[in-house]
């Protein structure tokens, strides 16, 4: 008994589920359900179909490189049954799975958090450079209070930013 991976969506195929298609060049395609099979028959590329793992990994939505993936390599050599080994393996599977899902969640969280500091810096720079779009440079020269002071203090930056905008 072996738990396979769906060729299209990369989900696990448990025994009793899914379909296998054997092509004439002896390549075997396994599908977890008819949804994946039908997409395959439509000749869709899984790397372009948004809900597949292949797409998500390719576009950086999911974690790709981690040490926890090493444990799940496919091994074709059968191991002699050893009760201790089996027990340890089962325990290890549980903990590795927990660690991996925790790390994946963190990856997605980090991705969703956004880049507040970088966006702030970009906004300040844009204001400095393109203030002429909002107000004529001659006006700014006459009234120096309208220009941004080059002090790197967070609070005053926010205040000064608002000033030209309101006028």
């Amino acid at each position: 008994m072996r738990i396979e991976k769906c060729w299209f969506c990369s989900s696990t195929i448990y025994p009793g589920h899914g379909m296998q298609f054997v092509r004439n060049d002896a390549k075997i395609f396994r599908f977890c359900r008819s949804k994946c099979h039908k997409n395959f028959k439509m000749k869709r590329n899984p790397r372009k179909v948004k809900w597949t793992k292949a797409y998500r990994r390719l576009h950086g939505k999911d974690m790709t490189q981690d040490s926890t993936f090493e444990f799940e390599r496919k091994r074709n050599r059968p191991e002699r049954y050893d009760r201790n080994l089996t027990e340890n393996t089962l325990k290890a599977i549980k903990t590795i799975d927990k660690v991996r899902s925790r790390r994946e969640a963190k990856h997605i969280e980090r991705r969703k958090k956004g880049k507040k500091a970088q966006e702030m810096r970009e906004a300040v720079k844009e204001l400095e450079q393109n203030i002429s779009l909002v107000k004529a440079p001659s006006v700014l020269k006459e009234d120096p209070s309208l220009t941004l002071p080059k002090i790197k203090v967070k609070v005053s930056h926010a205040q000064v930013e608002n000033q030209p905008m309101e006028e």
Partner: protein
Amino acid sequence: MAAGFASKWSLVGRSLLGGLNNNLSSLLGTSNGITCSHSLSQQQRTFIQMRTVLKVVDNSGAKKVMCIQALKGKKGARLGDTIVASVKEAHPNGKVKKGKVVYGVVVRAAMQRGRCDGSEVKFDDNAVVLVDKQGQPIGTRVFGPVPHELRKKKHVKILTLAGHIA
């Protein structure tokens, strides 16, 4: 629409067959239509029956055979079954000549076959390996993948000759 037309045509074609399969095939057509809800774009694969042309994947000399009779099975032959076939196309110098009546074992079928673990397998085309009455293959090589359903049917010789076992 094309598939609907095709299925209608195939039903008509089947009714033109020998009177044996008449009612069975129409029943078969409808029952298979029900199992697959939208047969609009999907091809419904069915059994190997009389008039089915199969590819020959050994070096016995034949290239295409047409099934005359599926031994065992009221509706037709499936993966791993034996059939009686007539050679329609053959290599010029081979052991088997055109027009000969031969037995064959179905090694690839486009219709899915359930495996004992609950999953299903299907192949890309319908292919057959010619055998004699005792079940020994006539040719000496087999091309392409074969399923391991043959082991249960006691066609071990074909499995040993095969390149890939699916």
